[in-house]
């Protein structure tokens, strides 16, 4: 019978699955295309015959072999890690301290500074990289991967601080106060009570920091020109696009491998992202 609760539930579910399915196709198509292209032979990639959505002339790992043997992919990977790990650490330490101070210490002008910090984030990279080029030059860091360690936090810290201010504000003040009354000093309270409770917020901020640092393209392209100092994003592109010759197979293979670390990080951290962690600390 149409209109029975059961039938209506089935209909609703079908619609939901339909919408979710459409979204999945939309968002998973680019990775699929990358994987597909990276496994095709060059002839097939350039061929106008047949159906492009499947591999017809046999799969090959040639592009992956070339990536590791004929380009500096491993050097880029190492540099990306060397830049991203300290960038995330430094940015998180600064953001946490700034956000804690701005959200909890309640000094004069804290609100204005909090908003100001966020506005800084809104200035686009493409405007900033020219003046920053002078700054990096002045610091003697041109053509060094460490230039990125200076530049990335300027984009990450404002946003993470703003994000954390919001999250910290949702943590009841009584929690800090209870710890202080219980005998903790400010630092113990921060490390043993406040930050553990703020873990979901910290994870969100960490993911953001990692993503910005790992996927940054403009700054490494602008500041670094030796292959030995280059990172994954700019490195893959500069070494696989020679003039107007695009090595599509290699580009796709490199892009796919480069996007694995963020995917793994997300999957790993989501497990620890227990939403509602603060539930139960205060009233129902």
């Amino acid at each position, binding site marked *: 019978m149409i209109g029975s609760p059961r039938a209506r539930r089935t209909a609703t579910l079908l619609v939901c699955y339909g919408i979710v399915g459409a979204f999945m196709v939309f968002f998973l198509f680019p990775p699929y295309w990358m994987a597909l292209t990276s496994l095709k032979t060059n002839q097939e990639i350039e061929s106008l015959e047949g159906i492009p959505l499947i591999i017809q002339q046999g799969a090959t790992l040639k592009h992956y072999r070339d990536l590791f043997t004929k380009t500096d992919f491993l050097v880029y990977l190492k540099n990306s890690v060397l830049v991203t790990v300290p960038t995330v650490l430094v940015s998180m330490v600064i953001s946490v301290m700034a956000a804690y101070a701005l959200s909890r210490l309640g000094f004069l002008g804290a609100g204005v500074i909090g908003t100001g910090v966020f506005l800084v984030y809104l200035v686009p990279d493409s405007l900033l990289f020219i003046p920053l080029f002078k700054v990096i030059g002045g610091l003697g860091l041109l053509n060094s991967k460490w230039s990125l360690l200076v530049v990335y936090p300027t984009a990450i810290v404002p946003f993470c601080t703003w994000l954390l201010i919001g999250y910290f504000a949702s943590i*009841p003040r*009584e*929690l800090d*106060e*209870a*710890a*202080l*009354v*219980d*005998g*903790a*000093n400010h630092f*113990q309270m921060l490390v*043993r*009570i406040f930050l*553990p*409770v703020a*873990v979901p917020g910290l994870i969100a901020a960490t993911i953001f920091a990692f993503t910005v640092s790992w996927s940054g393209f403009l700054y490494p392209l602008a500041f670094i020109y030796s292959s030995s100092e280059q990172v994954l994003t700019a490195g893959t592109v500069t070494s696989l696009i020679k003039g107007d010759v695009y090595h599509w197979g290699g580009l796709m293979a490199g892009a796919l491998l480069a996007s694995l670390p963020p995917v793994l990080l997300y999957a790993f951290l989501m497990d620890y992202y227990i939403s*509602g*962690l*603060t*539930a*139960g*600390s*205060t*009233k*129902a």
Partner: protein
Amino acid sequence: MAQVLMKDLNKKYDEVHAVKDVNLHVRDKEFIVLVGPSGCGKSTTLRMVAGLEEITAGEITIGDRVVNDLPPKDRDIAMVFQNYALYPHMTVYDNMAFGLKMRKFPKAEIAKRVGDAAEILGIQELLRRKPRQLSGGQRQRVAVGRAIVRHPQVFLFDEPLSNLDAKLRVQMRVELKRLHDRLETTAIYVTHDQVEAMTLGDRVVVMKDGWIQQVGEPLELYSKPANRFVAGFIGSPAMNFMDVAVTDAGGALWVESNGLRVKVPPVHAGRLGAYRGQHVTLGIRPEDLRVATGADSGDYAFDTVVDVVEPLGSEILLDLKAGDHALVARVEPTVRVKEHEQLRLALQPERLHFFDLKTELSI
């Protein structure tokens, strides 16, 4: 165990003068309750004692130490918050042990104290749980447990029962009272609920707009309120107030207004003499009114019209009109009246209250 002294205590926020010239001596082992309407400065006062709020002016002494500049951890106090403020990522055991760990107690001593407190509060079987797995009442017990394991000099409570449902609140109230009798630790307890204040406090401090209105034992506040505010705040249903003129007739003082004429009883006559020809506020508690019988003197009785009848089982609350005045009477459950009926009421002359119209002080 210790006494707490507040001397000329003041707290100013940017806009608000939240606590004004508070002077209070909380005696050793005393259970003192700060009560007053929301925003009257109770919490602020308590938080200054805790060290969570800076003192604008004045001095706080705990035991024999001035604590103005001591951080909370060095004041040897424990606090129970309205929202419990349990650490959500820790088990009940760790919640209670945290304060002792911070103070570097040996493991065995911590286990013993937490065990003892859990037994007192009946939460032994909850020790491995996380706060989110507890009911409101259980969370409240854990919050209390976290305070008592510390054996502090002073307990501070900020509306600890106001998030519980009515039944649980009454039960926890009794338990807190028993707990205090057992531990004999000085306690300062903040609430907006006058029933809680009256039942728990050895002495009660009534506050309003940052000022202390009166300090006294519960029954003293009830029978001898210092001013109109205290009189109206303590007691439920609240005291009836009426603007009346003081007149002189037949060699006796009377107070009267439209629909009401009552002789001033001898106990009040002396003090009220000065108000002859002026207006004062008359206060009558609902429980000091009863249905008049033929034997009642006309000097202390008056006619009313019943407006609303609220039978509560053990008693009946009557909303009445006496002339222009609306008042509430609390009468025996056996009284049979209907709305809009006439009813003659008698009052207890020695329990009348009079207040100065301007200063609102008791006369």
